């Protein structure tokens, strides 16, 4: 009902719009007739469809060379224009190469436009509060648009950005659907691991990326649930990443880690268009470890027991003492995580509008099952609407946008990955003869029992905003944006008694439930005043504005234990004890005044000054306010006469730009300056105890981050080769950190400004080339690479601080100090290490002195785009050069009750053996296990984890338009994480967290209909 009335409503608009166009074009035709009649030439109607090789191209201007006649293609790419046979038709559109065609006497002219790098410089880039022409921007901004996002079968927006932007490093944290991503823009600025998140802005509304999850209630995830999963990639028009001072200083205190601007799709004027996109596919784990089989495993265990001096196997060594069948062999990785996930996505949108009002309505529904051997899944549905209206006199404008997302995630409460790698290959069968879980006389914990516990989450999220603008006299524009977000996240983990061996007779009185309800509401109001003027060759734009922003968060975490029945496990009232694990309300308030002044001279010299004064409730009295600012300049030297005059110059575009400024960071959590007690949820004598909330410090203040960048942008051969290269150096000082403290202080850290400076510097290169460009065939490439260096510049009294054993001046923050592995002693069969202080003993403090840098050395991506007629092929290689912990760091002591990689078979057995692995032990030989622990904390377990990954492949074919009248149909095949090339010894080289499900290789097929 709703839909049809919406369509009826818009139809009226569309009809009036069409009528308008008809009236307009009929006058044009009439004028032309008069004009041409003097030349005695016959005009005729020419019509056709304009495409970009992918689909119809609306909004293309069709004009006749030397004449004023114009027309615009509609939503289906269709156009009509009147011309004489001698006329030359011009088809032009921003971002595409203009095509000239002599009309002759054809009545149908179908045109395929190809993208033109040259005109990309005219595209406007969103910088948050204002937008600039690509060619005139003074800041450093990376961008991807819907075109790239839509090619990827991903549910998380951050996944869509991987490998596509210079200076942006994104890693996935788990392959379990609904999991998160880590994102760093230009390296680690803050010593706090949770202080490196960029600021996310959706259509002008800041979106808090603070986790909404809680450890005990999202047990399957290695990191706390992030709210960023709420965004639907299909809704997004573009993502802009602001990187340098010039671009970020206008976000002041919140810009230090970069700003990510997300703009959702807007309606386009023209005929009401429906687009439906359906895709379906599968996902499988990318890589497994190469683990021992039963023979190899049993050999290892027997040898370990023999080495340790056991003459009979202990009663609990079921694998070797004859309790378990020693001929069984199961590849547990395949059985427990080797399933196939089914992925389905359906997206529909309706858009249209007239000159004054445009709208788009988007709906999306997607499901994803898991690779675990049970029926789990992730569902996400969302709806978004965008309305744009301007008054007849164009003075008043309003843009309204709202999106609502529902996510439903149902996963096992335990990730089976770790178990699958550790379980003995001769462990018993999962099911007994009658199909029940097999417990093998209580000699093992059946891994499938974990699947009886569930980790559920349900998130609903509303993001709405409106921008009103009004054109005042004297070229003043008054604008204000209003935004509101409302997020409700519920998650729970259950541990029913059925996860335990029934022989123990544990009933539902041992079942437990953990629930977490997090809600978060925020609003923002940002009134702004714009002024623009031109004088002679000069132009001035000035913007002043202010921000009022408030965020309220509530979290309640409950634990229920001892249920009347397992069927009532979601009913807290049926629990015999209910404990409040965490509860709290937080209030965050933020205000700012900001301004920007931009001067340009003869479209050649640009100067941009931005500033912001910020106040944040996260700081104590007297420290709440701080000022930030930046200056940026650009020189478009290709417009200088000395270059422009050199005719036929191979240089088609040249720009130098530089910026310098300061930004800040207030990601420190709320209320850290208060000296308070809060409830610890642990009753005694019927009273809930209260405890000191934190070690408080009333005096901490803002940290500052100084950013400097210079860059050159060069276009050659009509911009067919376009190179952007930039060098940046960010220095952050008086960092706000939780300074680590020894346990004797009662706490693990205290919030304070650290008198230390950290420098991130690096080079970013982006190269865009049009390799081949013909009517039917085109090939273009995009290459980006970032080389980053991180360095601790200054740290007074480092030696006497608690960081003494963590950092080294002049070295990166992300170093680890490890033992230096010197090799295997072929006599003792033990690992040996360098004794740095030569005292004959090994202590972490004195002998973990070997530095390993875990920062990626460089990373980037190479994207290729090929099209031939209606076929388009797109593929992206992502590459990272880095070191990472290998499998030896996560698998436990070789010889203990843990499966191992087959590498470990090369171990020391007799004097003279060279290993490289040391002798086996079950864990009771302290010499072996301490050597192993040192080995795990040495450079031996950190090895090359560089990889090249075929991250994304997308093949699409647009059916010729004459096949289906009025309908554009595109079929596509998309793949993610298709191939990985690496010498890494372990599961997946991308992961930092160990023992979690690797990312999935996803292949989907889809069809898109537009009519």
């Amino acid at each position: 009902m709703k839909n049809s009335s919406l369509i009826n409503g818009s139809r009226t608009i569309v009809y009036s719009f069409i009528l308008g166009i008809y009236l307009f074009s009929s006058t044009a035709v009439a004028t032309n007739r008069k004009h041409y009649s003097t030349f005695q030439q016959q005009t005729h109607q020419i019509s056709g469809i304009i495409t970009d090789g992918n689909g119809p191209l609306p909004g293309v201007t069709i004009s006749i060379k030397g004449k004023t006649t114009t027309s615009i293609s509609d939503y289906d790419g269709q156009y009509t224009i009147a011309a004489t046979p001698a006329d030359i038709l011009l088809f032009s559109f921003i971002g595409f190469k203009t095509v000239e065609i002599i009309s002759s006497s054809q009545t149908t002219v179908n045109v395929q436009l190809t993208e033109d790098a040259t005109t990309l410089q005219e595209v406007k880039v969103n910088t948050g509060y204002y937008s600039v022409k690509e060619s005139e921007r003074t800041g450093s901004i990376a961008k991807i648009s819907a075109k790239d996002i839509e090619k990827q079968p991903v549910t998380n927006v951050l996944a869509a950005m991987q490998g596509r932007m210079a200076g942006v490093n994104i890693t996935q944290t788990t392959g379990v659907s609904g999991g998160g991503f880590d994102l760093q823009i230009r390296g680690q600025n803050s010593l706090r691991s949770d202080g490196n998140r960029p600021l996310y802005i959706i259509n002008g509304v800041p979106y808090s990326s603070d986790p909404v999850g809680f450890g005990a209630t999202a047990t399957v995830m290695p990191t706390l649930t992030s709210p960023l999963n709420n965004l639907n990639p299909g809704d997004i028009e573009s993502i802009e990443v602001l990187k340098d001072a010039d671009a970020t200083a206008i976000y002041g205190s919140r810009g230090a880690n970069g700003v990510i601007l997300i703009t959702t799709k807007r309606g386009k004027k023209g005929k009401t268009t429906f687009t439906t996109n359906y895709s379906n596919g599968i996902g499988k784990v990318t890589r497994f470890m190469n683990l021992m089989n039963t023979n190899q495993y049993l050999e290892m265990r027997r040898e370990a027991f023999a080495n340790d001096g056991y003459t009979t196997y202990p009663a609990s060594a079921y694998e070797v003492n004859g309790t378990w069948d020693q001929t069984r062999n199961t590849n547990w990785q395949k059985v427990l995580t080797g399933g196939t996930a089914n992925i389905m996505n359906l997206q529909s949108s309706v858009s249209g509008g007239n000159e004054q009002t445009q709208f788009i309505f988007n709906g999306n529904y997607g499901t994803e099952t898991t690779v675990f051997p049970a029926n789990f899944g992730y569902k996400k549905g969302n709806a978004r609407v965008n309305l744009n209206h301007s008054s007849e006199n164009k003075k008043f404008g309003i843009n309204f946008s709202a999106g609502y997302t529902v996510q439903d995630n149902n996963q096992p409460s335990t990730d089976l990955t770790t178990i699958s790698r550790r379980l003995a290959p001769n462990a018993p069968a999962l099911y007994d003869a009658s199909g029940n879980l097999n417990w093998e006389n209580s000699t093992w914990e059946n891994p499938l029992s974990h699947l009886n516990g569930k980790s559920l989450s349900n998130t609903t999220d509303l993001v709405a905003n409106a921008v009103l603008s009004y054109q005042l006299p004297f070229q003043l524009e008054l604008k204000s944006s209003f935004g509101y977000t409302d997020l409700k996240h519920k998650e729970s983990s259950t541990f029913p008694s059925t996860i335990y061996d029934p022989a123990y007779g544990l009933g539902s009185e041992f079942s437990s439930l953990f629930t977490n309800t997090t809600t978060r509401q925020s609003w923002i109001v940002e009134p702004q005043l714009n002024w623009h003027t031109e004088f002679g060759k000069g132009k001035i734009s000035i913007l002043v504005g202010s921000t009022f922003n408030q965020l309220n968060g509530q979290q309640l975490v409950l634990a229920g234990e001892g249920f009347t029945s397992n069927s009532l496990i979601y009913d807290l009232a049926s629990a015999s004890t209910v404990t409040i694990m965490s509860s709290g309300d937080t209030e965050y308030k933020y205000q700012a005044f900001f301004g920007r002044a931009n001067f340009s001279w003869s479209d050649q010299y640009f100067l941009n000054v931005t500033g912001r004064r910020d106040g944040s409730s996260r700081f104590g009295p007297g420290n709440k306010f701080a000022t930030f600012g930046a200056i940026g300049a650009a020189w478009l030297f290709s417009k200088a006469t000395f270059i422009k005059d050199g005719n036929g110059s191979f240089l088609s575009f040249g720009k130098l730009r530089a910026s310098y400024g300061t930004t800040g960071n207030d990601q420190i959590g709320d209320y850290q300056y208060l000296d308070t007690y809060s409830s610890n949820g642990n009753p005694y004598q019927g009273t809930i105890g209260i405890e000191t909330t934190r070690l408080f410090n009333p005096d901490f203040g803002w940290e500052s981050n100084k950013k400097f960048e210079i860059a050159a942008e060069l276009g050659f051969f009509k911009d067919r080769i376009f190179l952007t290269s930039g060098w940046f150096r960010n220095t952050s000082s008086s960092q706000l950190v939780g300074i680590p403290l020894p346990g004797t202080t009662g706490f693990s850290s205290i919030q304070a400004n650290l008198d230390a400076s950290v420098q991130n510097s690096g080079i970013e290169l982006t190269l865009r080339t049009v390799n081949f460009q013909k009517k039917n065939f085109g090939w273009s490439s995009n290459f980006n690479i970032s080389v980053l260096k991180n360095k601790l510049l200054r740290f007074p009294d480092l030696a006497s601080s608690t960081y003494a054993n963590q950092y080294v001046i002049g070295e990166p923050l992300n170093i680890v100090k490890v033992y230096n592995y010197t090799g295997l002693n072929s006599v003792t069969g033990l690992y040996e290490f360098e004794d740095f202080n030569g005292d004959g003993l090994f202590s972490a403090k004195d002998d973990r002195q070997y530095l390993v840098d875990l920062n990626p050395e460089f990373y980037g991506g190479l994207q290729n785009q090929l099209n031939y007629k209606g076929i388009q092929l797109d593929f992206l290689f992502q590459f990272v050069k880095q070191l990472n912990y290998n499998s030896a760091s996560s698998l436990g002591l070789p010889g203990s009750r843990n499966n191992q990689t087959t590498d470990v078979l090369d171990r020391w057995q007799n004097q003279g053996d060279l290993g490289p692995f040391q002798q086996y032990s079950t864990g009771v030989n302290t010499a072996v296990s301490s050597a192993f622990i040192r080995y795990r904390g040495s450079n031996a377990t950190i090895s090359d984890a560089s990889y090249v990954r075929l991250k994304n492949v997308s093949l699409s074919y647009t059916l010729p338009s004459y096949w289906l009248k009025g309908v554009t149909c595109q079929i596509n095949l998309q793949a993610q994480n298709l191939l990985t090339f690496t010498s890494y010894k372990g599961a997946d080289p991308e992961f930092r967290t160990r023992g979690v499900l690797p990312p999935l290789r996803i292949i989907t097929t889809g069809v898109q209909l537009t009519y």
Partner: protein
Amino acid sequence: MKPIFNPKSILFKIQKKCIPVIFMGYCLACITLLSACDNFVETDQPSSQLSTPVVFESPTTATAAMVAIYAQLRSSTLLTGSPLGLSNQMGHYADELTFYGDSENSTSGFYTNSVLASNEAVATLWTSSYRVVYNTNAMLEGIAASSSLSLDKANQLTGEALFVRALVHFYLVNLYGEIPYITTTDYRQNRVASRLPVAKVYELIIADLNKAYSLLPENEESGERVRPNQYTAQALLARVYLFDEKWDEASNAASALLNNTATYALQDDLNTVFLNTSSSTIWQFSPFFYGSATEEGNLFIFTAGPPPFTALSDALLNSFEPMDQRKISWTTAVSDGNMTWYYASKYKDNSSVSFSSEYSVVFRLEEQYLIRAEARTRAGDLIGAKEDLNIIRNRAGLPNTTAISQDELLNAVLKERRVELFTEHGHRFFDLKRYGKLDSALSNKIGWNTTDALFPIPETELLLNPNLSPQNLGY
């Protein structure tokens, strides 16, 4: 039905004339806000937090801060009956328990005596203990600064905080050797704290306990023996003096308790010793809620073999003399037809019941008899010692001791402590250490080394505070 998002109805209704007026008004409002907005970023104190000075103005909130400390000891560190506590970890580390759980579990490292400096359980034990110490110091400072607590309340809470501070340091010094004795909340001092000689630590423990004794009330106010009183301080003092080899003081402190027969008396029936109404209990933990089983019951009890986590060791089971009623009352056999295992059944409930009759006992009178027996033996009073020892033996259905010489009697006390106090907060390990018998008693364990008598100082702590160096020998 009216469309929700009909552009016509939403947008076209806005009267064009109104627009400038609305905007001008809005502008004015903003300007007004701008001028008065420095207060905008002030926020109220969060509803879930209470300012520290306010906590110590009312006896209710001050008491809530104190009981939080007991709740910590009961649920998460040192004295807890959960796997994290000493009853479990030290029971495995010595020879009371056999471990059947997963080799990745922290208890496995304790059982095989292969605890390394990087062991997380050892680090957690250290940091959570010092967290308790911090909380006691915060209590002491809060009460000292308070102007409105009554003198009685202030004395009681001060005494309790001092008692707990001494108690925690007592365990730490016996586990880690030389340790810092923390008496302030000032992190600038505490982060560079140095280790003190063991004798100095004992001196400070005794000083705190004496002061606690002078401040604590004689009678426990709830009647449930869940808050320390004067006698609890005495009980710990007796133990501390014994460990510090001050035999007379140990005897005297134990006597102070043993003489108060009106309040403290042995239960004749072994099955009632661990009931919450037992008159031999000196101090016990109030349960999580009235009805929850003890952590010990949860941990030790199993109903089918092989045991999922832990069972009593053969060594312990074999050390019971024939006819010892404690083996019957306090251990329970579980069999799968072929094999039989035993668990400690001092506590009988392992899941919530409508109203629990068992609390976790921390100090009980039996230990005081055995303290005095040992102190008297060492001081040469063999007759008095035998009297004390026989009281415990007779209650367990055993005849008088046959020990004659001082050495024999000392060994008899050690053996009696083993079968009386098993799986209670690591007594066995501390006893063997005190007697210098760790190596002889534990050498049959494959992973045992002489240097295992002390835990390592956690590696992370050494890295953060260089003053804690050097590491204990053997790590």
